[in-house]
């Protein structure tokens, strides 16, 4: 700062200090002196030393109820910082809000609100907007906990302004409506030294005026006009009723929005009425400068270009004389833009371009204004044939628009989080005092309607959501069940394959052994043959030679036979594991039953070496070949035999139960001494029998295990029913067997006697 200016500022600070000193008199506060001091603070350029000086001077009010006056001075300092040093303003404002939250002075509440309201300016005009969101959201949350409607009303009001700043007008509208809903009787008192009004009616008038502004910004002129009209009518009636001179009242702010809305919607008839009403308020220079802009726009619309020209010059004069900043809280002071509009009307495009460029530089921190200027500028370049610059300007326009949109989306997220924070501590909205019937009715109506809508929406959402959720659960369960089912079927298949594996290993081992042994012995025979042929004539044993050759030839057949046998087993195993081809083929039932009996036996033996059982087969040779899906019926037979062996094994382990007398079975080996022991000891027995009946064949697999108790007999064919310990049986074996037999047009039955054993009977039609 130049020394001259520094001296001027120091003398201004000296005046402030002197005025504060003079304002305290023996009669009380001299408000003229006091307000003059505040006025000077507002326009001074203050450094830290100046602040210290002023704060020290105001300490004369630090005792008792006078302490409020210290905060009034500090509020003026904050207003000053809001323009000169925004970061300092934020810190200064926050510190004083904290102090006032615990202060017990009579006007502490009003002053705290005043500080909060003033704090919105530095947040809005600096790069700290998102921090502002956080700060006010936190404040909102804490006021909600304390049921502080005054604080809540203010926070919502400030947040509404923040959203307006970034162009999220819907959020502004929501927040200002929220703010209105917190106007209640706890907010009392008149203005305190011009610090924000703390009167229910006044706040309502102000907030509904803002609603008018937000609708205006959104371009919804109809709603803007409606909100503005209501606000102004209430204001006029209210001030008339209390006999207060409306001149200079803040509520006339709304009049300029109304004028704007009327101009924008081309309802020029009533513009003058609202402009005049707005001008009544313009005791404040920045507002005057701002209103000159609006009036000039009105004149431009009416074609009174020279009037507009002189008004805008006047506006510039006010700005320059009073060193007004771009935004003085009343609106953006940008006469150049309006002059550009005027020049366009006069077709002086180059001048308009120059003015817009100047304006872009001036309003650079107010992106909506810059965006608007870019658009107009690009159009002008186009109009004047400067395609290159037009393109460049459009590029700037798009890039700025993108950055605004990006910020908006960022703030939308913040807004969402803020709402969440708020909703966590939602309190019921207090009733508006009865004296303000219009306000109360409107608010209640809005709340009622909103509640009704919310309830309706909640109902619809709940129904939709529960249905959707239930459906989702059902769908998921069904999918899970399907997947589990297929897994279980596969695991059942693999389990029976596991049972087969050991048997198969044994069954393959044997033919492979023969292949090895026969090829080996053939080699030996060949050597012997060679040896024989090396002998001299006469000594050679031709009979032996023939015998050797016959044996070798037979061995080759054996090798071939056992090789095929091994191959067939592998083939069978693969067939078992793969999904049934569904192809029926003529099958030797006896051979099939025999094969699976052996496999099942070896399989079980491989698992449990101590297990032993006698197997009896009784095959009806007249049965012939039956048309079946061999791997499917094979699976059924295997399953039934495995179950039979399991039953025997369980009985053997249990020991005490007497099985049915092996000898009493119908088998022809009934008297076989190897089966019935002389000591009468239990001999586990599995019988596989085939029979040809009239139009069907029967395969029965019997065991002399413990039998199946009556209470579970109905369940054994049900899927997942098993008597085996968990993890040992899938409970699908019999169920799948039942399905397979049914699919063949046959029947699967069981005959059982507890303590005697069970017979499972497969009946298949011969011509299926």
């Amino acid at each position, binding site marked *: 700062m130049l020394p001259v200016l520094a001296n001027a500022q120091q003398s201004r600070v000296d005046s402030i200090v002197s005025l504060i000193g003079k304002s305290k008199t023996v009669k009380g506060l001299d408000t003229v002196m006091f307000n003059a001091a505040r006025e000077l603070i507002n326009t001074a350029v203050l450094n830290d030393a100046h602040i210290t000086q002023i704060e020290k001077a105001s300490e004369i009010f630090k005792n008792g109820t006078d302490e409020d006056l210290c905060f009034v001075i500090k509020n003026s300092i904050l207003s000053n910082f809001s323009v000169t040093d925004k970061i300092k303003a934020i810190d200064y404002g926050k510190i004083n809000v904290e102090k006032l939250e615990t202060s017990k002075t009579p006007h502490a509440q009003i002053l705290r609100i005043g500080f909060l309201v003033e704090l919105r300016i530095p947040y809005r005009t600096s790069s700290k907007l998102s921090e502002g969101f956080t700060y006010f959201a936190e404040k909102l949350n804490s006021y909600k906990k304390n049921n502080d409607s005054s604080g809540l009303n203010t926070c919502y009001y400030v947040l509404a302004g923040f959203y307006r700043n970034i162009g999220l007008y819907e959020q502004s509208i929501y927040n200002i409506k929220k703010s209105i809903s917190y106007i209640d009787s706890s907010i009392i008192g008149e203005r305190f030294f011009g610090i924000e009004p703390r009167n229910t009616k006044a706040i309502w008038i102000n907030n509904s005026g803002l609603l008018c502004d937000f609708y205006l910004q959104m371009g919804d002129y109809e709603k803007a006009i409606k909100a503005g009209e209501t606000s102004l009518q209430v204001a006029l009636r209210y001030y008339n009723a209390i006999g207060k001179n409306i001149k200079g009242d803040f509520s006339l702010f709304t009049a300029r929005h109304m004028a704007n809305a009327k101009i924008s919607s081309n309802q020029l008839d009533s513009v003058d009425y609202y402009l005049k009403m707005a001008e009544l308020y313009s005791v404040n220079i920045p507002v005057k400068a701002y209103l000159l802009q609006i009036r000039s726009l009105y004149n431009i619309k009416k074609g009174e270009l020279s009037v507009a020209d002189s008004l805008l010059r006047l506006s510039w004069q006010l700005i320059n004389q009073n060193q007004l900043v771009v935004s003085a809280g009343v609106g953006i002071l940008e006469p150049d833009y309006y002059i550009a509009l005027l020049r366009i009307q006069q077709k002086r495009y180059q001048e308009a371009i120059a003015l817009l460029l100047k304006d872009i530089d001036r309003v650079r921190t107010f992106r909506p204004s810059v965006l608007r200027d870019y658009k107009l500028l690009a159009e002008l370049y186009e109009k004047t044939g400067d395609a290159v610059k037009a393109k460049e300007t459009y590029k700037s326009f798009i890039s700025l628009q993108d950055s605004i949109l990006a910020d908006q989306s960022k703030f939308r997220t913040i807004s969402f989080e803020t709402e969440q924070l708020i909703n966590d501590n939602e309190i019921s909205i207090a009733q508006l005092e009865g004296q303000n019937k219009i306000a109360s009715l409107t608010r209640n109506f809005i709340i009622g309607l909103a509640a009704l809508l919310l309830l309706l929406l909640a109902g619809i959402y709940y129904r939709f959501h529960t249905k959707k959720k239930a459906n989702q659960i059902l769908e998921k369960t069904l999918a899970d069940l399907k997947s589990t089912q297929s897994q279980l079927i596969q695991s059942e298949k693999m389990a029976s394959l596991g049972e087969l594996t050991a048997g198969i290993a*044994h069954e393959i*081992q*044997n033919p*492979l*052994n*023969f292949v*090895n*042994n*026969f090829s080996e*012995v053939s080699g*030996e*025979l060949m050597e012997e043959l060679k040896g024989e042929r090396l002998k001299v004539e006469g000594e050679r044993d031709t009979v032996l030679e023939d015998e050797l050759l016959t*044996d070798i030839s*037979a*061995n080759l057949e*054996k090798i071939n036979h*056992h090789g095929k046998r091994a191959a067939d087993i592998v083939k069978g195993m693969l067939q078992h594991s793969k999904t049934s081809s569904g192809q029926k083929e003529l099958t030797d039932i006896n051979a099939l039953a025999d094969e699976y*009996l*052996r496999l099942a*036996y*070896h399989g079980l*033996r*491989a698992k449990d*070496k101590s297990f*032993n059982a*006698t*197997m009896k087969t009784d095959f009806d040779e007249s049965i012939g070949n039956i048309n079946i899906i061999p791997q499917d019926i094979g699976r059924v037979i295997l399953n039934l035999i495995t179950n039979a062996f399991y039953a025997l094994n369980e009985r053997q382990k249990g020991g005490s139960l007497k099985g049915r007398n092996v000898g009493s079975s119908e088998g022809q080996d009934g008297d*076989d001494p*190897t089966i019935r022991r002389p000591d009468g000891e239990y001999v586990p027995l599995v019988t596989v029998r085939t029979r040809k009946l009239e139009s069907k064949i029967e395969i029965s697999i019997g065991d002399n295990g413990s039998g199946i108790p009556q209470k579970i007999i109905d369940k054994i064919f049900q899927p997942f029913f098993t008597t085996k310990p968990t993890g040992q049986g899938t409970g699908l074996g019999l169920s799948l067997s039942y399905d397979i037999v049914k699919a063949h047009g046959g029947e699967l039955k069981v005959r059982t006697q507890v303590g005697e054993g069970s017979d499972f009977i497969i009946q298949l039609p011969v011509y299926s």
Partner: protein
Amino acid sequence: MNILVVDDEQDMKILFEQKFRKEIKEGTVIFAFANSGEEALEFMKNNDHEAVLILSDINMPGMSGLELLRRIKIQYNAPPPIVMMITAYGDAENHHQAMQLGADDFLTKPVDFIQLKAKLHIH
């Protein structure tokens, strides 16, 4: 030496006859074959003590080789025939069980005939 081979695989007979062609011709061994434990006991009943050596498979349908071993060692005890077990399941448990039941030797399939002949010579 009278040898009874017990195996459900009928081709074992052919294999043994070829492997012991010389011995059979020379009359040093006489083979008898049974396809099951039951058949083996039947043979033993009918040809008491003729088989001084029994070569038996373990895993057979019906009576297992181990059961046959148990019964033979109980029924024919003065003096009991030599019983050698031959099995595809050459695992420790089968071996242990066979030895407990009084088996004299244990062979695994595929039969190593050189080894078998050497063992027969000892026995």
